Structure formats: C-alpha cells, structure tokens
C-alpha cells in the first residue's frame, strides 16, 4: 500500500513543467502551499522537492525572456527588466510615475513602520496630503494596522505584502539600506555664485535660474 503511494509521487522532471504551468497561469505570486494544494494528496510533493523543481526552473530561465523571482507572497515568473522598453510598447499607457511626495511618504512608512501621519510630517516638514495616503491605500501598498495610544489615537500605517511584491522585494530586509547619516555633499553642478549683490533678485534669482534650466528640470531628480 505504502509502496503504491510512493510509486505515484512525481519525479522532479515531471514536477518542473507543472510548476511552470502553475506560475504562468496565476496572475499573482504563488506560495509553496498554494502550489502544493493542486496535487492529489498521494502525489503531493514536499517543500524540498518543490524547491528543487523551482531551482531547476530558475536555471532554465537563464537563457529565456523571463526569470523566476521569490517575492513576499511567493514565487513569480516575470518578464526580465531588460525587455521592459520593448514590452511596454505593447500598451498605450505609460507606466505610472509617482510624485516625490508620494514616494517620500511611502519610504517613511516602509522604513519606520508602524508610522502615523504625524511621524511622516515631522520628518518631511509638511502636511501629508490625504490624497497621497488614499492613493497608497488604494494601491494596497499600505494599510492601517492599528492606532497609537496617544491623544487623538492616530492611525498607524504599515506596508503590505503587495507593496513588497510590486517592488520586487522578498521582505522589508531587502529594502535598500537607509543612509546612516548624510554623506559629505556630492558635487552639485552649482555655478560660481556671484559675489556682491544688491538685492534679492540679483542675489537669489539669477543664480537660482542659472543652474536650473526650467525646461529640463534636472534638479527634480537631483541626487543630493
């Protein structure tokens, strides 16, 4: 009896195409448990066998247009970044760009979680717009995890698994390290500042607009 059961378990070579089919059928990352759930109990592979098949699949992908990635919610076959330029031309819309305000708010929540709006405002020095919080909740990148027990019981925000999935991360530990303390300033292509100046316009505006080409707005993405 037990021999019969053994005989029906799947060989690694059989398992691999099944795993690939599952990953390419699901429109989300799949956890090991989800993959296992589709097998009959008698044939169900163990985590070890499954991981072996996944590793083999990942190796096969080296020469392919896709790669196997483990993100927070599980495993995903994804189009390699190097093809993004051409692949994105299949669609009319441009990939969304997010404002610095949104990204800074998201970064603060990601690195400091749980964080309240007040925490974010304290670091950024400006009020957090409700639209930004709503957009982040809407994208399911952040959620309310509770309330801080201080006056007003402000909401505590944390990031979600979808956030990690979207940004191609396995866990919060994979976030780029937060700078310890700001480094010595990098050279900023600031022009020689005019010396003696009489008034605001001279002193400020001219140099300001000298290195700021309004039409290129390169400082918008300045690496300070």
């Amino acid at each position, binding site marked *: 009896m037990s021999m019969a059961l053994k005989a029906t378990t799947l060989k690694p070579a059989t398992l691999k195409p099944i795993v690939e089919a599952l990953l390419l059928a699901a429109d989300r990352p799949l956890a090991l448990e989800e993959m296992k759930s589709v097998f009959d109990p008698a044939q169900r592979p163990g985590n070890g066998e499954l991981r072996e098949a996944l590793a083999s699949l990942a190796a096969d992908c080296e020469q392919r247009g896709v790669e196997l990635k483990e993100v927070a919610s599980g495993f995903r076959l994804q189009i390699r970044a190097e093809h993004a330029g051409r692949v994105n031309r299949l669609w009319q819309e441009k990939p969304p760009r997010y404002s610095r305000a949104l990204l800074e708010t998201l970064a603060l929540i990601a690195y400091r979680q749980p964080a309240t709006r007040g925490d974010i405002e304290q670091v950024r020095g400006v009020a957090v717009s409700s639209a930004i919080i709503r957009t982040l909740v809407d994208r399911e990148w952040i959620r309310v995890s509770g309330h801080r027990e201080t006056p007003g019981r402000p909401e505590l925000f944390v990031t979600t698994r979808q956030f990690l999935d979207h940004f191609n991360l396995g866990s919060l530990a994979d976030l780029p390290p937060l700078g310890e303390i700001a480094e010595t*300033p990098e050279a900023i292509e600031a022009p020689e500042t005019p010396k003696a100046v009489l008034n605001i316009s001279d002193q400020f505006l001219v140099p*300001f607009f000298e290195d700021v080409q309004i039409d290129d707005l390169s400082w918008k993405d300045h690496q300070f």
Partner: protein
Amino acid sequence: MSGADLQATNPQETSPARPAGSGNASLAATAQVAGAVVELPSDLYIPPNALAVCLDTFEGPLDLLLYLVRRRNIDILEIDVAEITDQYVAYIELMQASQFELAAEYMVMAATLAEIKSRILLPRPEPEEAGEEADPRSELVRQLLEYERYKLAAEQLDELPRIDRELRQALAGLPDRRYERPQPAVQLSDLLEALAAALRQAELFEHHHVRGESISTEDKISHLLANLDRERFLPLVAMFDAREGRLGVVVTFLAVMELMRKALVEIVQPDGFGPIHLRLAGPGESA
C-alpha cells in the same frame, strides 16, 4: 505643461531679447533703490507659472533648505544660517509677491531660521557651567539630515524595478475555454456599496478642503507701517494680534524682520533684557 511652455518662461531664454522697460530694466531699477523698496516689483521678470514649477518642485521647507544648502556645496553641519535665512526668505517673498499661497510650514520655517539667526547674533550670557551650550543650529541640522535620509530612500525606492514599469507578471494563455481563468464573483450589492463609499469619500474630500489662511507678509508689512510713526516707539509685543493665531505671530515676526532688513524700522531695546520697541527709521538713516 509642455517643454515649449516652460522654455518660454525661462528667463535665460527670454530676458536678453527683451526690450528696455521690460523685466530687466525694472530689475536694474530695483537694484538702484534697494533698501528703499517695500514690495518686490510686481512685474518681476519671472512669470508666475515658472514660479509654480519651482514651488511644485520643492516638497516643503526642508526640501527647499536642503536645496539651498546643497547647491552651495556646503556641508549641512556647517550651515551659515544668516546666509541661508536670507536666501530662504528671499525665495518665499518672491513666491508671495507672485500671489502664491504658501503653505504655513514655509512661514514657520522662516521664523525658525530667523530665531536661530538671532540667537547666533545676539551676545550670549557667559556660560556658567561646564556644560556646553547647545548650538542653536543643531535641531535644524538634525532635521535636515533626517529629511535627506528619507529623500534619498525615496529615490532608491523609485529606482527599484517594479511591476508595470520594468517588470511584468508573465502569463500564458489557458488551454481551452473550460479552463478559463475563473473571475471573481461580484454581486450588484458589492458594486453599489463601492459606489456609496466612493461618494461618501468624495463628500469628505469636498468638505475637508483646507483653505489657505489669508495673512500675507505683505499685508502685514503695510499694516505695521501704518501703525508706526517716526516720533513714537511702539513695543514689539503690541505688533502681535493673538486672534490671528500661530500663523499670525509668525507672519508678523517675518514682517518685522523684513522691515528691519530693509532698514525701514529701527529697533530699540533700552535695557539689557527689557522690552523691544520699534519705530520708523529716520529719512537720513535708511541708506
């Protein structure tokens, strides 16, 4: 905003070609009478929409300050508060002169800078104890460094490859119609509930729209000038109106600072730590 639009508003592009009497000329005129002007020229050669671009570019007072510091290639730890304050105040005045409603945070920062500046300039009482007196800049420096950390973190976050930009979920078709990928079940009630929620949200959005407060430094300056006269000293505390709240105090303070900078008022403090008084500067002293 198209590139062409922006280009047209770039002073570098337009000012050399301008005829006399336009922006450049008025700039020169302003320079000659510097110290005697109360308001920035209303026909500043930078059109408001270009300024809007600048304003939108900064994510708040800390971001603006960081820019001012970094563009001079200064280490944050060695900020020249006096210089930075002047530039900062110049910037926000420019914004106000162009009828921008600045967020109150910008005003608060101006006041903070002014306060730090004054603490650095004022003679300090001899330190009695061995404990060093904190550098008045330290809190500001800490804030700037902290903000910069997250600003960089946000940039790094933006550079991560992400779904729908560099990456896409790979999907293959399903073999036949019977195995069509199942779709979520949605009831009409789900739909209606979602709509009701959206409408409620829209309503909140509508009603919580915060109006910018209408106290401008410019108005305050005119107001202060009207109340002062050359013969009479008025106590500084009398300039503040408690009913205007925190923002009012900040704006009043800014206005006073501005009048001092332009040498339009004199500050008198008869006793060491006694009340400070203001009066209009005499005609010969303003130069």
